[in-house]
C-alpha cells in the first residue's frame, strides 16, 4: 500500500487516497499535529519566550523553543515573536540569510494550537487566524534573504506550512522526523497557505494524497517527493549526547546551505524526475485537471459517504487556487477553514483527539516493578497478536501453547507481522530478526518463574481459564500479574480460584491486535492499584490506547455491542437483506457493515456472547432471536474463518456474495417488520440508539469512569463512527432529548430493549447537562 513512486495518474492517486482515508483516520489520530497547551500568563509577559536568534557570520540562526513543553506549537505568541524576529532580520544589513531550527530534539513544530481554534466562537474568528498566518507566511515566501528550514522531529500541520514557505528545507533522516498535514483528521484543512503551496511543490496528485489522508511522511520519502531538499543523517555518540549533536550538525549543514543560497552558489530549484515532469506537464492541460478533480472527488465521496466535509472542501480550495489564482485560493482556504472549524464533525474529531491523549496516560502512576519478562498463554490469533506488539517494543516474551502445531502457527503469525513491516520498509530485515529473537516459543512453563506478567489468551471457557490460572500460579513469582484476555467472561469469576486475586486483571485486546489500537483493561473490586498500573504500563508500551473499566458482564465494549447485535438479528429477521443492512450501517459512518461485522467477529463468538450477556441482562438484551446464530453455527456458517457466514468468502475474491444457504434459515425465523419503525433512518437509529443507550448506562453504573473513555472505546474498539465522536459526544451534539424521543418510539414498538436509561433521561430533561462541558 505504500506509495513509493511519484503518482502517474490521477485515478491511481485517488484510489490510494480513498483506501487510506478510513484506515488513517483511526491509525494516525494520535499522531496528529495539533497540540493543546495553555501557556501561563507570566510566560506571555516575557519577551521572546518561544523564539530567539543569534548571528553566525552573516547567517541568522532562529531557534524555536517553547518553554515548559516537549513540543513547539504554533500559537499566537510564537507567531508574533516570529514576525518580530523576521522583521529584525530583514532590517539588518549584516544578515544575508537565515536558518530556522528547533532546539527541541524530536520536534520542529508539531502543529497549531488546537485550543486556539477551540476558543473561537465564530467562523470569522477562525478565518482571521488563518489570514494572519497566511500573510506572515507569504512575506516569508517572498523573502529576498533566503531562509532554510532545518527540520528534525515532527513537522506537522502549521509547522509544515511554515517550512514550505521557506526557500529551502533540510531534514534529519530519522524515524522521529515526519512531515504531514494531518488537519483532515481533525475535520479541518491546512489553513496557513498549505493548500496553495503544496500542489505547487509536490504536484497536485501528491498534494491531494497528503492533505486528504493526513498521513505522516518520513524524511527520505519527503526528499523523493520534493518536500525537502536535503537530508542529514542522525549522528551517534560523540562529544555530546547524540540528539544534541545531531541538531547542532543539522544547524551547521543548514548554515552552509543558507550561505550557498545567499551567494547564489546553490539553487533552491530542484531537479525533477521524468515522471514528475510528465505529471506536471499533464496538469497544465485543463481537461486533465478536471479529470483529476473529478476522480479524487468521486473516491472521497465513496469513502466518506459524505459524512466528512473536510476532504471535499480541501479539494475545492485546491481547485480554486489552481483555476482562479492564488488570491482566490488563499481567500477560499481561510474561509473554508473557518467554516470547517465550526462543524460538528470537526468538534467530534477534536474530542476524540483529546480523549486519545487522555487514554495514552497511566492514571495509576508508575508500577512498583517494570514488566520486563512477559509470558503469554495460548498462541492463537490473539495470543500471537499480543506477542507481536510486545516483542516489537523490546519485551522479552514467552509464548506458550499446548501443541507444537498451535505454537508454530502463532510463531509464524508474529514473524509474518514483522516481515510485513520489512516489506513496507518500516523495519530492516535485521531489525526484524533481532525483534523476533525476543520471542521464545514453548510448550511448558519453563522460565515462568521469571515472568513479571502473564497474559492468558486461551479459549473462552471458564473452566479452562481456571485450570491455567491455577497451573500458572504454581510457577510464577509473587509479584507476577495475571491478566486475562477475554471479551466477555467476568474477571472476578476467573479470579475466584486465585490465591492472589489482587494480582488478577482483565486485558481485553481487539483483533487483529497489531492493527487495533484499543486495549480495554478490566479491574475487579480486588484488583490492586499497582496491578492496574502494571497493566496500563504494559499496554502503553505496546502502543495501545487504553480505557480502564470496572468488571461486569461484557465489561464496556462487548456490552455496548450486544444490544446492537441483537437488533441486527431482529432487523435481518424482519427481512432486511444483509447487504442492505451493511450499506445502512456504513452510510451512517461505521467502517464495517453490521452483518459483515458478525462474520468478522465469528458467528460462534457472537452466539457465545449473546448467550452469556442474555443470561446476565435478560429481556433488555432480547430483540432478535439468538436461534439464528445457533442455526448458523450448527450449519458451520461461522463467518469469515469458516469461509461462510452471511456472505461467502473465497481466497482472492474481492467482491463477496451473499450465502444463499442462509435464505432458508432466515425464512424459518422471519418476523413481520413494523412499518412505523422500519424506514432506513429508523433502522440506522435502532442500531445506534441501542448502542448509545447501553454506553450511557455503563457510565451510569460506574463501569465507565469517564465519557471520554467511553467514546474512545467505542470508536477505536468497535468502529463507532468517528465523525460522531463516540456515543457520548454524539449525545451532546445530536441532543439527548432527540435521542430519548427516538428511543421511546422504538420502546413503544418493541419494549424494554429501548427504554432510555436514567442518565440519558436526566440529560434530556436538563438541556444544559452535557457529557463534555
Amino acid at each position: 500500500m505504500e506509495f513509493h513512486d511519484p503518482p502517474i495518474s490521477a485515478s491511481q492517486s485517488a484510489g490510494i487516497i480513498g483506501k487510506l482515508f478510513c484506515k488513517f483516520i483511526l491509525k494516525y489520530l494520535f499522531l496528529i499535529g495539533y497540540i493543546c497547551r495553555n501557556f501561563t500568563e507570566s510566560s506571555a509577559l516575557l519577551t521572546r519566550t518561544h523564539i530567539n536568534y543569534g548571528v553566525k557570520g552573516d547567517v541568522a540562526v532562529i531557534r524555536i523553543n517553547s518553554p515548559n513543553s516537549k513540543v513547539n506549537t504554533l500559537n499566537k505568541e510564537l507567531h508574533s515573536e516570529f514576525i518580530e524576529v523576521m522583521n529584525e532580520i530583514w532590517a539588518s544589513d549584516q544578515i544575508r540569510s537565515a536558518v530556522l531550527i528547533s532546539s527541541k530534539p524530536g520536534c520542529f513544530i508539531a502543529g497549531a494550537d488546537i485550543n486556539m481554534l477551540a476558543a473561537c466562537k465564530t467562523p470569522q474568528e477562525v478565518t482571521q487566524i488563518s489570514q494572519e498566518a497566511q500573510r506572515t507566511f507569504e512575506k516569508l515566501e517572498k523573502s529576498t534573504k533566503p531562509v532554510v528550514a532545518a527540520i528534525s522531529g515532527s513537522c506537522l500541520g502549521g509547522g509544515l506550512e511554515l517550512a514550505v514557505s521557506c526557500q529551502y528545507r533540510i531534514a534529519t533522516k530519522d524515524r522521529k522526523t515526519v512531515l504531514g498535514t494531518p488537519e483532515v483528521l481533525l475535520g479541518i484543512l491546512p489553513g496557513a497557505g498549505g493548500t496553495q503551496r503544496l500542489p505547487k511543490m509536490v504536484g497536485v496528485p501528491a498534494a491531494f494524497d497528503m492533505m486528504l489522508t493526513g498521513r505522516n511522511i518520513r524524511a527520505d520519502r519527503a526528499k523523493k517527493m520534493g518536500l525537502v531538499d536535503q537530508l542529514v543523517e542522525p549522528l551517534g555518540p560523540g562529544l555530546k549526547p547524540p540528539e544534541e549533536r545531531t541538531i547542532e550538525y543539522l544547524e551547521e549543514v543548514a548554515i552552509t546551505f543558507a550561505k550557498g543560497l545567499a551567494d547564489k552558489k546553490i539553487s533552491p530549484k530542484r531537479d525533477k524526475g521524468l515522471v514528475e515532469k510528465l505529471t506536471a506537464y499533464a496538469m497544465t492541460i485543463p481537461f486533465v485537471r478536471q479529470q483529476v478533480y473529478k476522480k479524487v472527488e468521486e473516491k472521497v465521496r465513496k469513502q466518506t459517504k459524505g459524512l466528512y466535509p473536510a476532504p471535499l472542501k480541501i479539494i475545492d480550495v485546491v481547485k480554486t487556487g489552481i483555476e482562479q489564482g492564488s488570491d482566490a485560493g488563499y481567500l477560499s482556504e481561510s474561509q473554508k477553514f473557518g467554516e470547517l472549524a465550526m462543524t460538528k464533525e470537526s468538534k467530534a474529531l477534536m474530542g476524540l483527539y483529546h480523549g486519545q491523549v487522555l487514554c495514552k496516560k497511566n492514571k495509576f502512576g508508575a508500577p512498583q516493578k517494570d514488566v520486563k519478562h512477559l509470558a503469554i498463554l495460548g498462541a492463537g490469533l490473539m495470543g500471537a497478536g499480543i506477542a507481536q506488539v510486545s516483542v516489537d517494543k523490546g519485551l522479552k516474551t514467552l509464548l506458550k501453547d499446548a501443541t507444537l502445531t498451535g505454537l508454530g502457527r502463532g510463531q509464524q503469525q508474529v514473524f509474518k507481522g514483522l516481515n510485513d513491516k520489512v516489506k513496507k520498509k518500516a523495519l530492516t530485515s535485521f531489525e526484524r530478526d533481532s525483534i523476533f529473537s525476543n520471542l521464545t516459543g514453548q510448550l511448558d512453563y519453563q522460565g515462568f518463574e521469571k515472568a513479571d506478567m502473564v497474559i492468558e489468551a486461551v479459549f473462552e471457557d471458564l473452566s479452562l481459564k481456571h485450570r491455567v490460572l491455577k497451573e500458572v500460579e504454581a510457577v510464577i513469582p509473587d509479584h507476577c500479574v495475571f491478566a486475562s484476555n477475554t471479551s466477555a467472561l467476568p474477571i472476578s469469576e476467573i479470579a475466584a480460584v486465585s490465591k492472589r486475586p489482587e494480582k488478577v486483571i482483565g486485558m481485553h485486546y481487539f483483533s487483529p491486535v497489531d492493527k487495533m489500537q484499543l486495549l480495554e483493561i478490566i479491574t475487579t473490586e480486588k484488583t490492586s492499584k499497582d496491578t492496574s498500573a502494571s497493566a496500563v504500563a504494559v499496554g502503553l508500551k505496546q502502543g495501545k490506547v487504553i480505557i480502564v473499566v470496572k468488571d461486569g458482564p461484557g465489561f464496556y465494549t462487548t456490552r455496548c455491542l450486544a444490544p446492537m447485535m441483537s437488533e441486527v438479528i431482529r432487523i435481518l429477521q424482519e427481512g432486511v437483506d444483509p447487504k442492505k443492512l451493511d450499506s445502512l450501517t456504513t452510510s451512517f459512518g461505521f467502517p464495517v457493515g453490521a452483518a459483515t461485522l458478525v462474520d468478522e467477529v465469528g458467528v460462534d463468538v457472537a452466539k457465545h456472547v449473546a448467550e452469556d450477556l442474555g443470561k446476565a441482562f435478560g429481556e433488555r438484551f432480547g430483540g432478535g432471536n439468538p436461534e439464528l446464530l445457533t442455526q448458523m453455527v450448527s450449519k458451520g456458517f461461522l463467518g469469515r474463518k469458516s469461509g461462510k457466514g452471511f456472505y461467502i468468502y473465497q481466497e482472492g475474491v474481492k467482491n463477496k456474495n451473499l450465502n444463499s444457504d442462509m435464505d432458508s434459515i432466515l425464512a424459518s425465523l422471519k418476523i413481520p417488520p413494523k412499518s412505523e419503525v422500519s424506514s432506513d433512518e429508523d433502522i440506522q437509529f435502532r442500531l445506534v440508539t441501542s448502542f448509545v443507550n447501553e454506553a450511557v448506562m455503563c457510565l451510569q453504573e460506574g463501569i465507565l469512569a469517564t465519557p471520554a473513555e467511553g467514546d474512545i472505546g467505542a470508536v477505536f474498539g468497535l468502529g463507532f463512527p468517528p465523525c460522531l465522536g463516540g456515543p457520548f459526544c454524539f449525545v451532546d451534539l445530536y441532543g439527548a432529548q432527540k435521542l430519548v424521543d427516538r428511543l421511546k418510539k422504538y420502546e413503544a414498538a418493541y419494549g424494554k430493549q429501548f427504554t432510555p436509561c436514567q442518565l440519558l433521561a436526566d440529560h434530556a430533561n436538563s438541556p444544559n447537562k452535557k457529557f463534555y462541558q
Partner: protein
Amino acid sequence: WHHSVQTKTKKTLAKPNIRNIVVVDGVRTPFLLSGTSYKDLMPHDVARAALTGLLHRTSVPKEVVDYIIFGTVIQEVKTSNVAREAALGAGFSDKTPAHTVTMACISANQAMTTGVGLIASGQCDVVVAGGVELMSDIPIRHSRKMRKLMLDLNKAKSVGQRLSVISKFRLNFLAPELPAVAEFSTSETMGHSADRLAAAFAVSRLEQDEYALRSHSLAKKAQDEGLLSDVVPFKVPGKDTVTKDNGIRPSSLEQMAKLKPAFIRPYGTVTAANSSFLTDGASAMLIMAEEKALAMGYKPKAYLRDFMYVSQDPKDQLLLGPTYATPKVLEKAGLTMNDIDAFEFHEAFSGQILANFKAMDSDWFAQNYMGRKTKIGLPPLEKFNNWGGSLSLGHPFGATGCRLVMAAANRLRKEGGQYGLVAACAAGGQGHAMIVEAYPK
C-alpha cells in the same frame, strides 16, 4: 633505549608459567591499488608470494611449521580455505594443516592471536600467520533467482522438465549480485558511517585532509629511506617485479580540498583522498615459542604480548574499536599510555582516526560510553604511525594486521623503544589491540 626502559611501569610483560611467544620475522608483498599489477591473479597467488617471501627471509625449514593460519575478508569461492591452497602452492609440507579465519579488517590479527593461542596452550611450537585480500577480483554472483533456476536445471532429468525450468526464466534474473560493501546489520557503507562518525566528533574536512597528508608524507619518507623492510619483491607472472607499495601519493591540501565528498553528498567530509583505498596484497609472519626460536638459532624481532578484542554498536560506533580496546589492553598488561613507544593504529579513514583521538581525549565519552571515570588520553602524535599507515600504504582487509605488528616491531628496533601498541577497528563494530614488546638486542 636503556634510559627509556628505566622509566617503564614494567620491565617486561613476561608472565611466569606462560610461554613467551615471539615473532621471528614477518613480510608482506607490496600493497597495490586494486586493479593494478595483481589484477589478473587469484588471492592464493598473492598469499603464496607472501609465504615464499617469508620462507626466503627466515629460511625456516618447512617441516618444522606446525600450523598455518590466514585471514581474509572477501572470499574467493574456489579457494575458500585460501591458507591451505597458498601453503601447498608455496611448497609447504602437505602434512602441515592450514585454516582461514575472517573478522573483517582484523582478520590477520585474528590469525596471529589464534596462532598465539595454539602456541601458548602447547599445541604448536611454530605457526605461520598471515592474511590476504585481492580486491581486483571479487566474487560477483548470479541473483538468487538465477541461481535457483540453474540448480533446478541441474536436477531436471528430461527435456520436458528442462524446458519447464527454462520457461521460468525472466530477464531480471540476470541482474548480478555484488558482494556487500555495506554493514549487513545496518545496510550502511563503512564510508558513510565514517562520515557520520567524523561529524559526531566534529572532525572537520581540513583536519581530515591534513591527517591524510601526514600519512602519505610519512609513508613516502619511510619508503624513500628504506624503512619498509617487511616488503618483499614479487615477480608477478607476465609482468615486471613489483618492489614497492604504489598507493603512496603525497598531494597538497589545495588539491585535496577540490575533491567532492565520496559518501554523504553534497556536504560530507570523507573523500577519496582521506580514506584508505581498495588494495591488493598479502602478509605473513613466523611466530614461535621463544625457546623453540632460540633453539633453532633465531634472533626474534619481538614478543607478542597481551591482546584484546572488543565490540560495540555497529551503527554509530562502527569504527571506534581502538578507543575501546586501547585502555583495556593497557590495563590487562599493567602499562600506561606513557609506556608505549610506538603506536601503530589501522587508518581506515582520516575521520575515523581523528574521531578515535577525540573520543580518547574526552572525559564525557569515557564516562558516558566506556564506563570509565576519566579519559584514556591521546597517543602522542610523534609516536603514532610514523612510517605511514593504511591511508597511504594501503589496506588489503585480510592482511593489514600483520603489517601493523611488523611496523611496530621494526619501529621499536629502529627507534629504540620497548613497547608497541597495535590497534584496529573492523566492520561489525569490532576492534582489536595488542602489545608488542621489542626483543632485547
